[in-house]
């Protein structure tokens, strides 16, 4: 069974090496597409196995847990890997039209696939220190991607990005050290049991907070999100799309994992803090977006805002709320990555990214308008698109938990999200272009247009499918949430049957 868990890490690494060797020719980009397609196959296999057989685990190097490193997949890990593969494939196809040869020569495809490998590794590892390693892989690969253009604003954003993320890394590492000092283990399933035996539970809460802050920075929650809006609008559109879709979600995933599996001893304290964090994250993010006029800056602040909803799902800590968090994660990755991809096409044909200085897309590029309105209105939570169900489940969970205020905030933030999305729509799409230009999709060469629109169209289709047929996704999220709330199967899969 171990190969099925290792594949989602091995495939992108192998792809990275091959793509690097072929970076001088067009073969590199096609290798990246093929590698991500292979990753998708591997992810589907993994997902199918987990769905049918329950949590699966593999001990790397054959050393039994907790002595070696364990890879483990429950439904949450499985779906995160699957959605990573989908995003990876879409973005690698999009990159066929988006990434120029100079960036390819400098190793774009290698960096991209290493990033994907790091993301998959983070979702699959069952070892805390190993998770740290994957965070480092992601950080360095994303930094490389961020500065690949070498423009001053990219360097500036990159430095803010890497500095603040290093603070998170150091905290994470310190937390690992402290937790190891208290429990003597790094294996997450083992930790889940070991923390129960810790005498000083108050100290455990203190250590839990170091993880909360470390992952909070990664997830870009209030007030730790500075690095995100500072950096996400600067790199190539493919890069910002994959960042927007995946990076913060690894932080959210880590928070969910740690605060369901290991740190569930003091939820009255930790999860109450998470609740306030969620509220402020939603509000500051959405207000930040309202103040922006750059296409990608608006979207970047919205990432922050939407992270708040996912954290809210974790903070409420009811079955329904966790269903919402899982559903939200999946929906958001698809929608958010797609919006950045669309921003790229918009920039290409309108010649700008400030929504007040572009326009005319609705009239002369109606296909792009359709492709935009699907993820944009989904993000704003309009039915019957995926975002509505995500928001609905979270709000319902909040109301069921009698969290009147937080439910109200979640709904009000939804309204402000509508405001931002319609700003982009009204300015970039409805308004005539201030230069009198008629932006058309055919302004792009066919070799660029086709792959870019294919990627966007694919993700938009997925959004519509989740929206129209939500039942299987909700059922899935329910099972995933049940596994999170009762980690017995997870622990048993990693450590073997008790006894």
């Amino acid at each position, binding site marked *: 069974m171990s190969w099925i868990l290792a594949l989602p890490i091995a495939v992108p690494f192998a792809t990275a090496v091959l793509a690097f060797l072929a970076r001088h020719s067009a073969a590199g980009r096609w290798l990246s597409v093929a590698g991500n397609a292979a990753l998708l196959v591997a992810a589907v296999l993994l997902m199918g196995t987990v769905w049918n057989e329950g949590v699966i685990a593999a001990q790397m190097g054959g050393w039994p847990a907790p002595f070696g490193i364990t890879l483990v997949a429950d439904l949450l890990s499985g779906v995160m890997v699957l959605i990573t593969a989908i995003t990876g494939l879409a973005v690698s196809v999009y990159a066929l039209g988006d990434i120029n040869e100079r960036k390819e020569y400098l190793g774009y495809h290698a960096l991209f696939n*290493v990033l994907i490998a790091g993301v998959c590794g983070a979702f699959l590892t069952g070892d805390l220190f190993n998770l740290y390693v994957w965070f480092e892989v992601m950080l360095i690969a994303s930094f490389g991607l961020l500065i690949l253009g070498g423009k001053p604003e990219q360097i500036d954003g990159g430095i803010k990005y890497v500095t603040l993320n290093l603070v998170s890394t150091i905290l994470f590492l310190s937390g690992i050290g402290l937790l190891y000092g208290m429990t003597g283990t790094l294996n997450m399933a083992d930790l889940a049991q070991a923390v129960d035996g810790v005498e000083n539970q108050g*100290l455990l809460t*203190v250590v839990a907070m170091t993880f909360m*802050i470390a992952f909070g920075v990664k997830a870009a929650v209030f007030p730790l999100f500075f690095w995100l809006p500072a950096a996400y609008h600067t790199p190539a559109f493919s890069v910002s799309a994959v960042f927007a879709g995946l990076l913060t979600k690894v932080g959210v995933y880590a928070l969910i994992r740690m605060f369901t599996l290991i740190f569930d001893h003091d939820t009255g304290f930790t999860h109450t803090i998470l609740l306030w964090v969620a509220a402020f994250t939603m509000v500051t993010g959405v207000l930040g977006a309202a103040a922006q006029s750059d296409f990608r800056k608006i979207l970047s602040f919205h990432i922050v805002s939407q992270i708040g909803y996912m954290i809210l799902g974790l903070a409420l800590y009811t079955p329904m709320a966790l269903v919402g968090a899982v559903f939200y994660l999946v929906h958001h990755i698809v929608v958010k990555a797609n919006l950045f991809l669309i921003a790229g096409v918009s920039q290409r044909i309108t010649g700008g990214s400030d929504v007040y200085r572009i326009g005319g897309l609705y009239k002369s590029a109606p296909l792009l308008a359709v492709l935009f309105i699907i993820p944009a209105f989904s993000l704003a939570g309009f039915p019957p698109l995926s975002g509505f169900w995500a928001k*609905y489940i979270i709000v319902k969970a909040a109301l069921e938990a009698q969290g009147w205020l937080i439910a109200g905030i979640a709904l009000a933030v939804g309204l402000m999200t509508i405001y931002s999305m319609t700003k982009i729509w009204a300015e970039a799409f409805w308004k005539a272009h201030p230069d009198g230009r008629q932006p058309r999709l055919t302004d792009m060469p066919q070799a660029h247009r086709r792959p870019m629109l294919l990627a966007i169209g694919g993700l938009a289709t997925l959004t519509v499918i989740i929206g129209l047929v939500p039942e299987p996704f909700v*059922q899935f999220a329910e099972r995933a949430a049940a596994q999170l709330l009762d980690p017995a199967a997870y622990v048993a899969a990693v450590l073997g049957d008790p006894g």
Partner: protein
Amino acid sequence: MAGGRRGNGLAGVLPIAISAALFLYFLAMIPDVAASGALVIHWQWVPSLDIALSWRLDGLSLTFALLISGIGTLVMLYSNSYLRGHPQYARFALFLTSFMLAMLGLVLSDNLIALFVFWELTTITSYLLIGFGHETPKGRRSALQALFVTGAGALAMLAGLILLGRAAGSFELSDILRMGPEIRAHEHYTAILILVLAGAFTKSAQVPFHFWLPNAMAAPTPVSAFLHSATMVKAGVYLMARLHPTLSGTDAWLWSLTIAGAVTAVYASFKALSQTDLKQALAYTTLMALGTLTLFLGQQSGYAITAFATFLIVHSLYKAALFLVVGCIDHATGTREAEVLGGLARAMPITAAAAALSALSMAGFPPFLGFIGKELKYAGALAVASEPMFVAGAVLLSNALMLAVAGVVAFRPFWRRNEQPLPRAPHEAPWPMLAGPVILAILGALFGLWPDLLQTTLVDRTVQAVTGGDLEAKELKLWAGVNMPLILSIATFVLGLLLYAVHRPLRRGLQAFFARMISLDGRWDGFLDAVKGLSAWQTRTIQNGRLQSYLTITFAVVLVTLGGTMLARQVWPAAPEVGEVRWSHIAIVLLIIGGTLLAAFTRSRITAVAGLGVVGIGVAMVFIVFGAPDVAITQLLVETLVVVLVAVAMLRLPFLDRKGESDWRPGHLLLGTALGATVTAILLAVLETPLDRRLTDFFETASWPEAFGRNVVNVILVDFRALDTFGEIAVVVIAALAAYALLRTTAGRRP
């Protein structure tokens, strides 16, 4: 409006066919509904969330369905000529058809959440249709305003519907409608009522949420006729009627609906008379109608509900007809200004006739349906238990004003003498544009003469649905004898004709009055500016672009969180046992402190880096003193590399500017010290707990016999935890790759 000569092709014909087919279908359902009361069909959708595509066809939903599909058919037919050859007709037709289907879904849904889904779909399609003139700022503003106001209400309503569903234990209307007493006694009843009414009042444009509706007239006229008069804006009214059996009957319900409805009706009637643009005048009369409908839904009596059911139909018929007439006038003459238009009857006889018939129904003259509607309104108003004079007065005043407005909109442009030249020479509209007004106007007369046609087919069952079967519908008849309603009717005619006679000076007075009143529409832009201002202020404060401030905040968060948690959970380390202190220990500590201070206080970045290097060397020496020379060597190596690399990076990257930095930063010193102390305290507390040596023991015992390596650390790196090492190698390689890329791309860019 009509652009090219080409027709609209399939996009023109298909919507007509779809809506006509639906209309015929619903028409055929009349006998079934009349016989059985309510038909319910259940389709699965999201059973995990108790959401189903279940449909409910009873008197109320059938009435709405017939109005939607019937007027829809006429509007589609009309639009195909009105916007003939428009380059964006295909999407217009798509939005309009989608709207119609969504609206049908809304009124037919038996599931509250499905109803909400369709509700929001009407909001989106309305947004896209109002923004049809998307290149004008006014069109975009109006579209956003409508979306924002109704969207805000809808979100509140969503919360209300969730609470309602939880209170009832079901999201199916079939269940909820049976649970009136339980819901009204539920602890969340007031919250449910407020939240649901927020949705209904915004959608149906009750004062003070009314201001978006007149602006929505930026949409093409058929859209205004269909969405913003006959159907969509009645969604709020529909919801109130739908939930009437469950939520009505309390004082809160009675007074909120009565007051909102009465104020809206009277305010809108005056406002309507103050307009000179025919379409704007009609928009305000729609508001008046919505207010009246709301007012009657507040009540419990059979007369009030029968008045509601009848006036709902009356209004849809005459109002859609009049909007379409105004569209014809606009189309033919190029203007909608009341003071410009005149003498159109000669050039547009059919339009004039349709307008006249509709206006008579609107004004409430016999033998039109409008008369019956008005009689019932008075009967309903007088049957109001609490404040009959208040309600009857409001109805009388608004009816009289309606009569005057009917004259201004539908009589004067056709029959008064033509005083001013028109932008275009008037001509009769083509037949597809006449079909709507004519058919609707004739229906108004037909139903007035034979009210039985409506009574048994729709009104009885609608009243039954709205009252939950408690009350019988009152009889619709033209002549009910000399009674109070008739006297009030006569008073209405007198007052209305009087108002019409003096409407021009009255209009000027009203315009002057409203100009001085607070206009919520005027405040709208200020509101948006305030939102933008708040956002900008917040963003400037938090996201100010300075890394130093980001780092300060991040570290402060770490300090406050960890320190706060220690206080909250009373974690405090005991004073550690200090063993033998040697001079070498003190020297190392002093070295580390010295390096720190150097880094903190120097003006030069390179010196700061060197200072940190000193700290690193101090740490290496700690390792040496405590017997871990291999770790110390690694530490020394890494530290040296870091210092060199950072120094090189700083030389190569001169655009790290130092603006706004000062050398003396006591705050940072304090923060750093406090943070260091906190982490130290946590570390000491952790050290108090005994170390679990399971892993260490295993590594030591298994290293040689099982992994064939004597150096435990090496075995851990390459075997036990090889995956970590693999990852770290990847990190180093990628770092090199990134550095290479950075140097390549920034080469030659140095200033």
